[in-house]
């Protein structure tokens, strides 16, 4: 009788244990699924934000806007042909000689190189494009 009792007790214990484990696993899966869904949602939100920012960037950089801002704040006009000379000779032997297009005749040479104003294609991290681009001439 004692033997039967212990056998039954053992079965019950195993059952209880497996039930507990099952609940634990199902809970973990549940949590993991929620976490996954949350991550998916945040990825999709980030992607959407990226798209919005890309559209905004394109809008803020439209040549029409840059031109009007350059005219209004920097008093810049359209460059004249006489302001453009070929710079290939002066750049021979340098790293950028291959891409040496032109440099504005009026531009001062800086230590960084003959291209004083290079507009970055994408805004630097953490800088909102709306503040950044107002002063950059195209």
């Amino acid at each position, binding site marked *: 009788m004692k033997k039967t009792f212990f056998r*039954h007790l053992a079965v019950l214990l195993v059952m209880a244990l497996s039930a507990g484990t099952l609940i634990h696993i199902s809970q973990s899966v549940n949590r993991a699924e929620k976490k996954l869904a949350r991550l998916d949602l945040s990825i999709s939100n980030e992607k959407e934000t990226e798209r919005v920012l890309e559209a905004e960037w394109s*809008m803020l950089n439209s040549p029409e806007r840059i031109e009007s801002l350059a005219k209004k704040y920097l008093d810049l006009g359209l460059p004249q042909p*006489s302001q453009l000379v*070929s710079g290939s000779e002066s750049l021979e032997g340098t790293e950028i000689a291959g891409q040496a297009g*032109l440099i504005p005749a009026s531009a001062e040479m800086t230590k960084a190189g003959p291209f004083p104003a290079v507009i970055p294609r994408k805004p630097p991290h953490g800088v909102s494009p709306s503040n950044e681009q107002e002063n950059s001439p*195209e």
Partner: protein
Amino acid sequence: MILRNVRQNIIHIEGEQSSALQLAYGRLILLGSIFALLYLVIAARTIDLMIVQGYASESGGQDSEDLSRLARSGDLLDHVRRGNIYDRNGVLLATSLKTPSLYADPELILNKPKVAKALTQIFPDLKEEETLAKISMKKSRYAWLRPNLSPGQQEKVLELGEPGLAFEYADSRIYPQGNMAAHLLGYTDREGRGLSGIERSAQKTLAQGQDVVLTIDVRLQHALRREIQSAVEEFSAQAGAGVILDVRSGEVLAGVSLPDYDLNANSLYVSDVEKNKEILLNRLTMGVYEFGSVFKIFTTAALLETTDAPLDTEFDARKPLKIGRYTINDYHAKKRLLTVPEVFMYSSNIGSALMAQSVGAVKLHGFLSDLGLMDRLVFDVREIGWPQVPDPWGEASTITVSYGHGIATTAIQLCTAAATIVNGGLQVHPKLIMKGGAENIKPQARIISEETSQKMRGLMRLVVTDGTGKKADVPGYYIGGKTGTAEKSDGKKGYSHKKLLSSFIGAFPIDNPRYIVFVMVDEPQGTKKSFGYATGGWVAAPVVARVVTSMAAILGLPSDQYVKEQDISLPLQKYVKPEHPEKKKLASNAN
């Protein structure tokens, strides 16, 4: 309790029945334990649901709301977004963004007149009465108010704090550059199906979520649009159009049709096509025009290519030419014998008619066909006009076609043919969608010889140095071209002297052309500054000069490469008779 009683009874029972009772007792214990365990599981699950999970969802309330939204909106991540459209430098031209649309649940709105008034303040184009009627609907719990709200508008609606106003999110097409290349880009319907332009012709690619890269350069596009717009305003013209074309690859770097419209507001224009047809018409690819004298490029090329006529061949332009019911005059008649370069640079209609006669009707027809001027052009947008060609093609039509009347083509087709003439004689396939690799290379048939192409470049340079297109000259750059001034057809009344189509087709650097720059202005009115003239030389040529100046700065083309002594028009000067200064001034005013 029962169990204890049973056990007490067992104590008193002895003998063979006791083992049976023990078995029953064991079974009862087992059953009881199973039930106890079940209750335990239920209790545990209840605790889990009510406390563990309940607490978790409370701490992340926002998240669970988002998650349920995610579940409702279906598989957000698997959803294929319509592809973007970029220019050749990667500037975004069209994209799809999730934008909110506003709707109301009439049952939840308490103070309806107040809400209607507030909404009309946020959206000035909404009418208060209509809005009130919408949000007062009985039975319905959904009153659709407005699509595609801007972030600012959405904020204002949220500030109202009205529980009955809600948003629905859906993709809508955004064009960050507004009017830029509006006609070429085209637009989509609300479901995101392309209805015109690239949106329509590249529908399949875009719908699969793939991006499309165009050959357009937004900087050049802007420069071209700005200059044509200013000419349209200066000469109080009806419309304008222009294109910058790479003569070797056929890539369209810029294409403008004015008046244009903001693509983001396309639904306003598309809703009434009849009223807005002037704005919606793509004058570059769909508009079919008689271009006038620019066609002399093809007549002269046909003469040089199909006959052995040397450049000093003379054509009698002393008196108007009568052919059938037509009398052909020159705008500013020289009234003398003209050589081939003179006919071209002074844009003599009589001379061109005589050239066409010496080429012959059949040969001229064949030549124009080879240039692709007789058939509908194959292009990356589907809105392409059919050229109007004289039928039957007789002697009279050969004559009128020689100076660009009686034949009407699209501007893009005209530029494609001109590109073939100046690029060394190879066929050009214009394109708007950038394709990489083998797809990019199409066989280019030879249409005219290298020698004819070279002669034509010299003649086109002569037009700018000494002929009707002097205003297209930019010191330092090597521009060649041809002016065109066509009288527009006035229905049954024949041609109108007051309604002109003034154009200029330029190529540069003309010794080895890279670009075609074409500008046309529809119905310009002469101004004081232009001494009342509204010809191609006065209206369109200066625009081309300004566009080339801008292009040089954008593309980085140096101005110090031009050597006057090597000008390709110099060898042709010997065929040009020197003129009296007064006459010369008059000539520059001609088309």
